[in-house]
């Protein structure tokens, strides 16, 4: 069982990109250019870490492997869309990650005691909802890409392409507010800022348009879901049950 515990700890640690970014931002005083205090910036990146922990998705890789190995076939003849299995796996892993994420947050506050804050209950609940919506958007985007396995077999290559805008535009490397105004206006039309930036800003107490952000998240889910259903329905017609 030791290897499982280590694996879970490694999952949690693997999401610490926001802390590296915090270090880069504060060491170079980059926050001054966007009028965010050190404290707010460190809270933002801690929240980005939390949002990332509970919204990270890898369904495309799981589906691709299962598809190539013929493991999707038994799932396809069950009265449940196989993506529900992956969805449940993601939720289970998120629950498992929670204690490790708390431990990391504990050490974060030990080294940055001035960043310690307790969000009010309403904001906390809205942030949980927003993080879950972010997870849903990412899950739907990756599921759509995963369905391309029915045509290309290597859908993960397309996911790697998508990872670039996700990395830069989601707020993982820098708060979206730091982008020039004309770029920002375009970014907010994409789903990316609602993946990390919006929920992290909401939780950290930074100024953000709560109703606008939540509406955009819901809108993206409503746009992506029928697209997923369509591509799933067309893709399964192409399924050749290879490897089985």
């Amino acid at each position, binding site marked *: 069982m030791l290897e499982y515990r280590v694996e879970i700890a490694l999952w949690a640690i693997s999401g610490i990109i926001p802390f590296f970014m915090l270090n880069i931002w504060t060491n170079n005083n980059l926050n001054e250019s966007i009028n965010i205090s050190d404290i707010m910036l460190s809270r933002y990146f801690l929240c980005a870490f939390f949002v990332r922990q509970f919204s990270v998705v890898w369904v495309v890789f799981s589906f691709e492997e299962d598809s190539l190995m013929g*493991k999707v076939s038994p799932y*396809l*003849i*069950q009265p449940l869309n196989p993506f529900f299995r992956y969805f449940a796996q993601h939720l289970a892993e998120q629950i498992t990650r929670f204690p490790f994420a708390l431990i990391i947050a504990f050490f974060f506050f030990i080294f940055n005691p001035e960043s310690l804050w307790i969000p009010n209950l309403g904001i906390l609940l809205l942030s949980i909802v927003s993080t879950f919506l972010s997870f849903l958007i990412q899950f739907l985007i990756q599921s759509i890409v995963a369905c391309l396995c029915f045509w290309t077999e290597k859908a993960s290559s397309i996911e790697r392409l998508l990872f670039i805008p996700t990395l830069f535009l989601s707020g993982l490397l820098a708060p979206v507010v730091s982008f020039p105004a004309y770029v920002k206006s375009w970014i907010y039309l994409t789903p990316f800022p609602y993946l990390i930036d919006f929920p992290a800003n909401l939780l950290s107490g930074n100024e953000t348009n709560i109703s606008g952000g939540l509406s955009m998240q819901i809108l993206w889910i409503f746009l992506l879901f029928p697209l997923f259903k369509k591509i799933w329905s067309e893709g399964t017609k192409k399924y050749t049950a290879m*490897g089985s």
Partner: protein
Amino acid sequence: MEQNIIDVRNLSKSFDISSKEPGLKGTIKHFFRRQTKSLKVIKDISFEIKEGEIVGFLGANGAGKTTILKMLCGLIYPSKGSISVSGYLPFRRKENFLKNITLIMGQKQQLIWDLPPIESFYLNASIYDIDKFEAKRRIKKLSEMLEVDEELFIPVRKLSLGQRMKSELLAALIHEPNILFLDEPTLGLDINAQRNLRKFLIKYNKETNATICLTSHYMKDITSLCKRVICVHEGAISYDGKLDLLLKKLSPVKEILIVCSSEEDAIKLENSGFTVKNKNKNEITIKIANNSITSSLKTILNNFDIEDLYINEPPIDEVIGKVLIKKDYEI
């Protein structure tokens, strides 16, 4: 009169297959100008299967047996023709259809690798809307039939292939399907495990009147389970009918080794009009047509002094092997 539960009419399936020449040149050429061709793997086949029947699909590797099973259970979409299974179009994968069937494919598993099989059984039970109490009852019943007990609580990765296969079968049958599609279910199992699995399938068929369609390269699976076989050759049906009839057609004679009490008797027998295969002192092997075995043996026993005799069936693998390389068998 039992009803047809599976009805297949003029079914065809084609796959687009790409081909690549070997080496760097072939790879570059393949990258820029991929050559694909349409390969017709199933060619206009038709058949019906009645409720409760056990039907074996026979064919050489690549003949199209598994593709037929995959289309019957709705995994792949047919290119042409119609399929009706239990009144449903399989590819639509309607919930009620899926609750009625199961597919087991050799060593492809649906059990969760790191958890004991019992966890997968309860997961499957939830997927099929079976309540916990009923699931427990079914697991108990099936585990008794399959003779599995402690294995249910050991992580799947620690189980032997035979134990895994039994657990796999239990997971696939927890919803008590009416139609079982089994693609080489005994692949890789030892002789005892194969026998137990066959015994289980016969019992399951008797108790539930389930229809079973199976493919296997082990002739023992076919002869023990199937009265009817469908032979597939290069995507087309070369024979559809009773296994007995096929065997009779393919091997119309039996070889009988007769040990006479003296060499003189053996010589007399040799000259009495029977087709002699070989003779060695007082032992003589003759060939007798299947339909005249009783009368011929009566004549021999009444007219010659016989010490012993042995009736040899031709090896089934050899007989069936003939059908796999022929296009058509009219019975």
